[in-house]
């Protein structure tokens, strides 16, 4: 998509923030007194370089994602490029009209009607009045609020509010669009709509710089990504590679056994070590749908009965898989005191790519755990082709993390009036019964 023409040229851009004076003046009076006493004294400040010597080019039509952890300088770069704040050094050249999409609803006022807010918000985003007039109907249609145009927006449902706000922003005519986490709001349907609009923008040949935390969105939208670390560029390149660097930077490319988050501990048993391996090779990056082997080293101090269990959680700590890593009949009962190695294969289902945590616990059903280590291991599930359609999944709250292939049944078209056989209500005994209608 991108041509050879430059859209943005950034050279040695730096931004220094004052973290407050070494001598703090709480009030104007203190400052005045100080000034009178020491007329030539210059304030010394603690400083922080939020951006340091950042140099990059963005070509026309390129969609660049800027990623990095909190405090890496993403927002500062955004603020400098959008002229909210001045750089401390360096220079940025922007070849074209710049538009900013920021938090949805910036500049909206609850007391004003939808119509008034369209004009206000549009002007704030930098549109001329004539421009808003021209695209007014389009915006209203996009937001689907025509009936409520003259109602104050504080009476709007949150969905209508967000739709209207995005509608205004989305119709900004700019050659260079700076976007800051706008898609972080709204329901899944609306996020999809926003993403779709953003893709349209990207495909129409406009240049987009997109600041985001969201891996899924950046992968979907951006043709390249830039990773910032402590105000400097750590990587520029393909989004997949950028995120690999990002994870490595966050120490997230899998992590070896770590027992710091041991929540319970009995004197009889302890997990000493745990590791995953594939084909005998220790692995922290697990291809989706593979069968890694979990090796758990357990120290038995006193002969006791226990079972080993594994819990796999998503990045957001939501448990998604539970495995009892036991011998055939459930419980280890005859392990002599000493160190033992328990090995079990985990037949993982097709999982969305991303980071997962593994909790390991030793215990008995209906009894307190004897040993429980939260986040004992961290693995990185690599994307894989899950199905014939070759789809790739990314961990997301919207689509879940475990992928199963639905099998279309040959007799799935049922004549009208016939009662389809469908599994439904749980009958309480663990079996599914057909619902008698």
């Amino acid at each position: 998509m991108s041509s050879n023409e430059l859209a943005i040229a950034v050279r040695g851009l730096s931004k220094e923030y004052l973290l407050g004076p070494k001598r703090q003046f709480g009030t104007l009076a203190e400052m005045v007194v100080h000034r009178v006493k020491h007329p030539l004294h210059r304030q010394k400040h603690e400083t922080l370089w939020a951006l340091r010597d950042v140099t990059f080019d963005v070509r026309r039509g390129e969609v660049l994602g800027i990623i990095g952890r909190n405090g890496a300088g993403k927002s500062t770069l955004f603020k400098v490029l959008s002229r909210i704040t001045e750089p401390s050094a360096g220079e940025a050249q922007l070849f074209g009209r710049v538009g900013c999409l920021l938090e949805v609803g910036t500049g909206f006022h609850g007391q004003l009607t939808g119509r008034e807010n369209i004009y206000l918000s549009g002007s704030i985003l930098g549109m001329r009045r004539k421009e808003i007039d021209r695209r007014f109907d389009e915006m209203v249609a996009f937001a689907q609020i025509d009936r409520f145009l003259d109602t104050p927006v504080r009476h709007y449902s949150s969905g209508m509010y967000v739709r209207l706000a995005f509608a205004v922003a989305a119709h900004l005519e700019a050659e260079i669009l700076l976007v800051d986490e706008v898609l972080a709001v709204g329901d899944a349907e609306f996020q999809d709509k926003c993403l779709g609009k953003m893709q349209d923008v990207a495909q129409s040949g406009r240049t987009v710089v997109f600041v985001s935390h969201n891996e899924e969105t950046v992968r979907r939208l951006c043709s390249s990504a830039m990773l910032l670390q402590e105000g400097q560029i750590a990587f520029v390149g393909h989004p997949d590679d950028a995120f690999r660097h990002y994870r490595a930077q966050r120490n997230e490319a899998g992590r070896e056994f770590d027992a710091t988050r041991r929540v319970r501990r009995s004197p009889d048993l302890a997990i000493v070590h745990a590791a995953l391996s594939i084909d005998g090779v220790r692995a922290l990056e697990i291809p989706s749908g593979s069968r890694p082997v979990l090796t758990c080293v357990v120290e038995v101090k006193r002969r006791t009965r226990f079972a080993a269990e594994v819990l796999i959680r998503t990045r957001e700590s939501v448990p998604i898989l539970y495995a009892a890593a036991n011998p055939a009949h459930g419980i280890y009962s005859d392990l002599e005191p000493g160190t033992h190695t328990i090995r079990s294969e985990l037949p993982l289902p097709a999982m969305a790519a991303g980071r997962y945590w593994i909790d390991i616990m030793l215990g008995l059903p209906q009894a307190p755990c004897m040993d429980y280590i939260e986040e004992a291991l961290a693995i990185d599930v690599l994307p894989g082709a899950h199905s014939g359609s070759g789809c790739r999944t990314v961990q997301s709250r919207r689509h879940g993390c475990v992928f199963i292939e639905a099998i279309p049944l040959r007799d799935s078209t049922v004549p009208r009036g016939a009662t389809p056989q469908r599994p439904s209500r749980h009958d309480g005994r663990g079996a599914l019964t057909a619902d008698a209608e």
Partner: protein
Amino acid sequence: MRVPSPWCSKARARNEPAPTAGRPLGPLDPDSRRVIGAASSPGPEPLVRPRVAPPMLVIRPTSGWRSLDLREVWRFRDLLLMFAVRDLKLRYRQTALGVAWVVILPLLGAGVFALVFGRVAKLPSAGVPYFLLAYAGLLGWNLFQGTLTRAGGSLITNAPLISKVYFPRVIVPLSAAVSACVDTLVAMGLLVILLPAYHVALTPAVLLVPLWLLLLQVLGLGLSLYASALSVSYRDVSHILPVLVQFLLYASPVGYRAAQVPHAFQAVYLLNPLAGLLEGLRWSLLGGTPPRLGAVLYAAAVSCVVLVVGAFAFRRMERRFADVL
């Protein structure tokens, strides 16, 4: 049935390797546009056509005093109007009397002044009904005071916008001044009824009314530019401002005439530029003795100087707004 799967990433196919990947970035020579193109197209790739068009926008650090950049303000004139309209609409929305407040407030104020200074203190009113005298004074005063307080606090109330969106910051206090001006003009419209009711005839001096209003606003705006910029770093300003306004109200000929001030204090009294301007406005509206030319020239000069100094100080402090707010 073929339903596009939500897991399918359509964008994937377009994700060609990034054009900037692994490419050394050359230094930028601000004097030569050619360098930009050449520096970013190394290697065997076809040479980039050097961009002839200069960048639409160059962002670089500035320091010290800088120009007012009025052209940029003009570019954002629509926003200025939108802000002013927003302020006006919001002030009287959800009120039973609505815009009538613009007229009611100075009427009440003038009533109080007429009672206190006219009836109780029995100050002479030089042939004009005391109520009118106070109303005319309040018109000018409200313009100055409205501009100063609204514009002075405007940066703080609009802080969420300033830290998120770019526009020339001066738009914010300017729009507050515009909305104060609109209020005053509406209140002034009531004179169409009041003057005939009190049998006061207009004199040719009425033509000077816009000049007085302009100067009052220039003074108020100049002070508020400085105050608002300072209030970003020092919230103390928002505490001092009301006290200053209260003091000025009594130190200016609003509820009484400047002539009432004892001769011994006249020289000091006239140091307040508001004295000349308010007396001038009252003379233009109600007739009587014109203000002394010296006092008027002095007031005009002070107002202009205050505005220019305020504007440049604002520009100077402006670059820290987004960082501090």
